[in-house]
């Protein structure tokens, strides 16, 4: 078998492919039930835009998980930067929105840096640190926001149109998410530092013996995750235009869920950001598809849970089969 063909086969057999198929299946079934699910302006728009914010956060989360860490504070970081973005718009209504995007990114990166530094220098599990900052960042958010909220009429129409308008039939938010995704995917695949993140997650001890800049990579993974959450916060402001102290509450589980469903191994070292993005699409589309398929609102969460379990069990079964095959082929060399 030549290498091009085997590469094509490899892509087809990859973890991402399975989830993509599941996503397509959900969309097809819903569309058969109700053609408007895809073939209406709103259906198409919602199909693309609903998961877009989660895609951005899940990309950051996936990178962190690949380094064998986890970031539970993404929801809190999203909330803080959404409120920051809203406040800036209220105070300086004429500020160019591009600048606010940059501020959101930078602010999120700063929060992520705190996480990363604590994990990297404290040599303590990321789960504990980010559980702590989940509480702390949310607390700061509530302290700052109080019972205030920012309402849609305080957010410039320009920004809101970014949050809801489309270019060539594709929502701007989705385009932003896709750009982020492509950059991250390219980086994780083609840059040394991206590959080192995989190495660190695959075997941290070996990475240390090998002399990889483990601490630096882990910190940068958290900075990226923070920046993505910060960006997502601004996108949240653009899309929902109403922000109180609870924006993004509970988002961490969605983000981790998306990554896990998308084939990012929770023990690090494998999976891709593209998979996480597809996971995000699947997770949120399922949510919207269930009522169409006829499953009552109340059971949606249960179905989502069952799906997460199905995805990880399937993924595991495939991985076991794969590694058995590898073991069997090892003697060929001898």
């Amino acid at each position, binding site marked *: 078998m030549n290498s091009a063909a085997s590469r094509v086969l490899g892509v087809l057999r990859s973890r991402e492919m399975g989830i993509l198929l599941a996503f397509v299946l959900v969309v097809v079934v819903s569309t058969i039930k109700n053609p408007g*699910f895809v073939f209406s*302006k*709103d259906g198409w728009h919602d199909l693309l835009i609903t998961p877009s914010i989660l895609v951005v956060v899940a990309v950051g989360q996936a990178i962190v998980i690949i380094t064998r860490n986890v970031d539970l504070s993404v929801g809190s970081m999203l909330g803080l930067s959404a409120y920051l973005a809203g406040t800036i718009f209220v105070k300086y209504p004429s500020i160019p929105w591009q600048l606010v995007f940059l501020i959101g990114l930078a602010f999120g990166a700063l929060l992520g840096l705190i996480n990363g530094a604590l994990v990297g220098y404290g040599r303590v599990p990321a789960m504990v640190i980010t559980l702590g900052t989940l509480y702390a960042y949310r607390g700061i958010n509530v302290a700052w926001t109080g019972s205030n909220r920012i*309402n*849609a009429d305080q957010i410039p129409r320009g920004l809101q149109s970014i949050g809801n308008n489309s270019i060539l039939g594709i929502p701007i938010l989705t385009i932003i998410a896709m750009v982020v995704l492509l950059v991250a995917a390219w980086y994780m695949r083609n840059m040394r530092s991206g590959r080192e993140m995989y190495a660190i997650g695959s075997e941290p001890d070996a990475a240390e013996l090998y002399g990889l800049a483990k601490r630096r990579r882990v910190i940068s993974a958290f900075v990226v995750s923070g920046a993505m959450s910060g960006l997502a916060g601004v996108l949240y402001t653009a899309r929902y235009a*109403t922000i*109180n102290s*609870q924006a993004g509450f509970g988002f961490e589980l969605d983000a981790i869920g998306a990554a896990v469903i998308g084939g990012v191994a929770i023990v690090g070292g494998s999976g891709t950001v593209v998979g996480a993005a597809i996971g995000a699409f699947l997770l949120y589309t399922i949510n919207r598809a269930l*009522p169409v398929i006829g499953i009552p*609102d109340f059971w949606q969460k249960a179905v989502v849970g069952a799906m997460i379990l199905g995805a990880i069990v399937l993924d595991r079964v495939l991985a076991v089969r794969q590694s058995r095959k590898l073991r069997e082929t090892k003697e060929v060399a001898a």
Partner: protein
Amino acid sequence: SSTGTTAGTSSSKAANLAITFLPKNLGNAYFDTSDKGGKKAIDELGGKYAEVGPAAAAPDAQVQYINTLTQQGVGGIVVSANDKAAICDALTAAMDAKIKVVTYDSDTNPECRNLFINQATADGIAKVEVDMIAKQIGDSGEIAILSASANATNQNAWIDLMKTQLASSHPNIKLVDTVYGNDDDQTSFDKTAGLLSAHPNLKGIISPTTVGITAAARYLSTSSAKGKVFLTGLGTPNQMRQYVKDGTVTEFALWNPADLGYLAAYASAALIKGDITGKTGDTFTAGTLGKFTVGANNTVLLGDPYKFNKDNIDQFNF
């Protein structure tokens, strides 16, 4: 019992006009407005206003706050219940400690409070919403309801009444779905999207919650369903103004939440001072709002809901 000593200040001669508002959650525009009304009343009375509450609308967190207020020995608690039974015991303990308990907006079981300040009768609210949607969609077609949480007492009561009224007076209107946005902006927004994709023939949405109607309006305003799917329900003028002006929403209703808080504060003060006990037939004066009489079930009624539309919305600011 030991509670007597901790609540010592409340048994002193001067009336303890420390009144604390405990809304369903903080950061909710509706309660912001109503509690500001409460503050205005308490300032007029020379009392001490405070507002505490959980970040998310859950009954267990409310219980913790009620317990703390009991420990602190405040004079009165004005609370909007997240669950009609869950916070009952905590409120009873507060009343045992001589704290006056007034519910507003969302009631508890009657035995757990001294008074309920009702913004409008459930019947009146249901009727106004059904009438508005019937008028907007031409009295026939599919409609859906976007409610708050599945457990919200007041919401569920209204929804039940709406169903009865639809069945009896509007046979051509079909209620196809009820979804829950949990009074969370993002959830309500996404649920609206879900409703529209699940029911392509939908003609109207009733959202009897201020968070829900705002989120739904924002979704509709940029969607192609704008002008085709009618939206009405309970909303505040400030939040709905732009959608009324851009034609997304024709008409919606609400009482004045500031008046609700204002009335609740006065009722609480009247109870603390011993002017009333809360029994049916008691009367008291609520500042600029005038005189009120306690009705059946120890309930005080604020009045009828008020309809807002293009013509009158600019006269209001809350």
